[in-house]
């Protein structure tokens, strides 16, 4: 009797699992508050509409390596993957991501503008559907800067006015640009200078002036923690992290938007999915990147929607009830002096400059 029961149950489980797998998709993202914003703005409405169960996998940080390994093994288990633009470009180069026809596979704006015009310059790769614009910028402790709060990126290099430790990311990207900018290089020339060995040495020399006062971070949560503990007087991180330190945790921290570096985060669909899974992934993308959905995400996290048509729809934070527009990196007040991550440059120079940077760090 017992045996029959167990067999029946096992059979039932297999049947359920079989049925479920037909209506399931795995979406990979970064975890934390960011995944939560996607859950609220995209996953829950999509599941409600279609009945598809969405499984979350917080593996975006290793997405490129894992996708390559899956592809070599011939068993891609992910349906949609959230990556930063630089990773999307590499995945596209490696043939690991599906090329998208933006105008037919994405929804047009409500006024009929085609998707490719609506996203505009943010379409940096044939495989990449941008979702948000975020920025890497500085936050500082308001109680440690006295009555002279910094308003200029070069405050980072000014140890006399702002003594104390700073936290910078443990990689050359962004740091090299800021160093050159504060060493008298004009903004338009930064990448021309950085392409030369002398320019790279110049940037490292400028960083060398504060090297002893830098805490190098590798996880986005490091700077917020260091700021909250008073370990550093200022530090770079993603603007959404600083938003949560300032508005949600009410720490004495303020934003230094000057010379913030815009970057994009968005979706790719892995190459080599079965036809049925690819169709479902494309259907999800069509839904999740339309004008309203992108604007909805900004209710939960302070990252700017990638569509031009979404910007006017950005409202208030879902829990805090504050206006989100002034916290967006793209807000005119914050975006007086900005950089856009130079994907082409860093795709070429990343390995070379990184080797130099790491050797310099180890000295």
């Amino acid at each position, binding site marked *: 009797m017992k045996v029959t029961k167990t067999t029946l149950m096992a059979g039932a489980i297999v049947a359920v699992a079989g049925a479920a797998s037909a209506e399931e998709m795995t979406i990979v993202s970064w975890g934390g508050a960011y995944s939560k914003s996607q859950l609220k703005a995209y996953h829950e409405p999509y599941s409600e509409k279609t009945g598809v169960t969405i499984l979350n996998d917080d593996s975006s940080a290793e997405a490129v390596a894992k996708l390559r390994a899956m592809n070599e093994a011939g068993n891609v288990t992910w349906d949609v993957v959230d990556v930063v633009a630089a990773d999307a470009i590499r995945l596209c180069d*490696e043939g690991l991501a599906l090329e998208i026809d933006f105008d037919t596979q994405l929804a047009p704006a409500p006024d009929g503008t085609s998707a490719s015009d609506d996203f505009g310059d943010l379409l940096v790769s044939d495989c990449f559907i941008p979702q948000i614009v975020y920025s890497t910028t500085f936050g500082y402790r308001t109680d440690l800067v006295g009555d002279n709060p910094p308003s200029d990126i070069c405050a980072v290099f000014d140890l006399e006015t702002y003594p104390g430790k700073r936290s910078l990311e443990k990689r050359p990207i962004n740091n090299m640009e800021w160093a050159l900018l504060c060493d008298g290089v004009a903004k338009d020339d930064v990448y021309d200078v950085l392409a030369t060995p002398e320019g790279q040495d110049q940037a490292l020399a400028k960083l060398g002036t504060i090297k002893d006062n830098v805490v190098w971070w*590798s996880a986005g949560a490091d700077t917020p923690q260091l700021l909250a503990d008073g370990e550093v007087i200022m530090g770079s991180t993603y603007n959404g992290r600083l938003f949560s330190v300032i508005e949600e945790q009410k720490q004495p921290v303020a934003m230094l938007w000057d010379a913030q570096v815009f970057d994009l985060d968005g979706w790719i669909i892995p190459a080599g999915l079965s036809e049925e899974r690819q169709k479902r992934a494309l259907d999800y993308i069509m839904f999740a990147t339309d004008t309203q959905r992108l604007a909805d995400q900004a209710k939960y996290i302070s990252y700017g929607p990638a569509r031009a048509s979404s910007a006017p729809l950005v409202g208030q934070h879902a829990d805090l009830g504050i206006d989100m527009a002034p916290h967006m990196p793209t807000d005119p007040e914050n975006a007086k002096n900005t950089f856009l991550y130079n994907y082409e440059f860093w795709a070429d*120079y990343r390995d070379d400059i990184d080797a130099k940077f790491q050797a*310099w760090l180890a000295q």
Partner: protein
Amino acid sequence: MTDATQSGPMLAADGTPLKKSLARSLRRRKLRALALIAPLLLFVLLSFVVPIVSMLFRSVENGIVAQTLPLTVVELQNWDAESGELPDEALYAAFTKDMIAAIEAKEHTKLGTRLNYEQTGMSSMFRKSGRKIKRLDPEADAPFKEKLIEIHDGWGDVDTWRVIKTHAVPITNGYFLNAVDMRRTPEGAQAQPEDKRILIKLFGRTLFMSLIITGSCILLAYPISYLLANLPMRVSNMLMILVLLPFWTSLLVRTSAWKVMLQQQGVINETLVWLGLVADDARLVIINNQFGTIIAMTHILLPFMILPMYSVMQTIPPYYTRAAKSMGATNWTTFWRIYFPQSIPGIGAGSILVFILAIGYYITPEIVGGTKGVFISNRIAYHISSSLNWGLAAALGTILLAVVLLLYWCYDKIVGIDNVKLG
């Protein structure tokens, strides 16, 4: 008596020579034993040996150039890289043909990424040129030399072709050269420019710091293990729980806890400032450097030292030390001449465990190591997950494996591996 005088080999009951019969039965038994362990052997082979060997093979595998540009590679044989002159039209035509096929298969950007490890700029050159070369016709649009140089002036640079020729070999030593701060050039192996040398330094640092960590683990673990083995059961059980509790706690939690303890506004510094031992503006820097890595890793690896030491010490019979004392030895002599030598197998086992674990550690140095406390494994992780230069990562891994095996061999020669006991 007749048996003794009989000449020839001894025979078994069935008439075959005894030696042969014995060998046969032994062989049969061996085969049976082998059949019994076959599933395990197969499992180890499939899940352990094959993946590792295939990963290590990537450190020399370099088929991508010849596979993506087969005609070009043949033509490059006829071109003298030393001449300083650009290759002729035949090569450009072959290259265009190869590229059109590669773009069709979306292989050209992969090749660009591969060559970008050797020469900066290749990645965007292949990506950008690909969009335009796609529109060329391999028959009608000849000649190609001018057209390609117009598409991207990199194709008019002798260095581009020298790099392609240098890295066109299917089996390369290039990754291994990179792993020891050298590079493969048309003129043979050369040292990297000074400002890019880092890997040898990291290897040295990894070995040095792993030794220090192993040493500090021995110093800390020895008295604890001694207490564990010699205290009354009730107390030692309590102590054992204190050892095991952190062992069961997540690695990341323990590492982050050290951050809270060691940072400048952290528990230790606050206490010292409060006690007046350290001035407020001269707080100790004990994290984000080598010291932080050594402390955190010693703490994390300590149980791997304590447990083998403890299990060996438990087996040391107490009457040896009692006998020594009864014959007039001092406490120190008893310990040093009688107890310590018997506990060495535990130290050996613990040291090997801790050292081998330490040398491959990656997450703790990444979190608390700052810039001076990171290991070679952090670089391997970077090349696996970030730069995607798996060939270099595999070469670094192979070297690390070789170093560990070498040290193991040295240990065997000096201390003797049969002198290692886990209990």
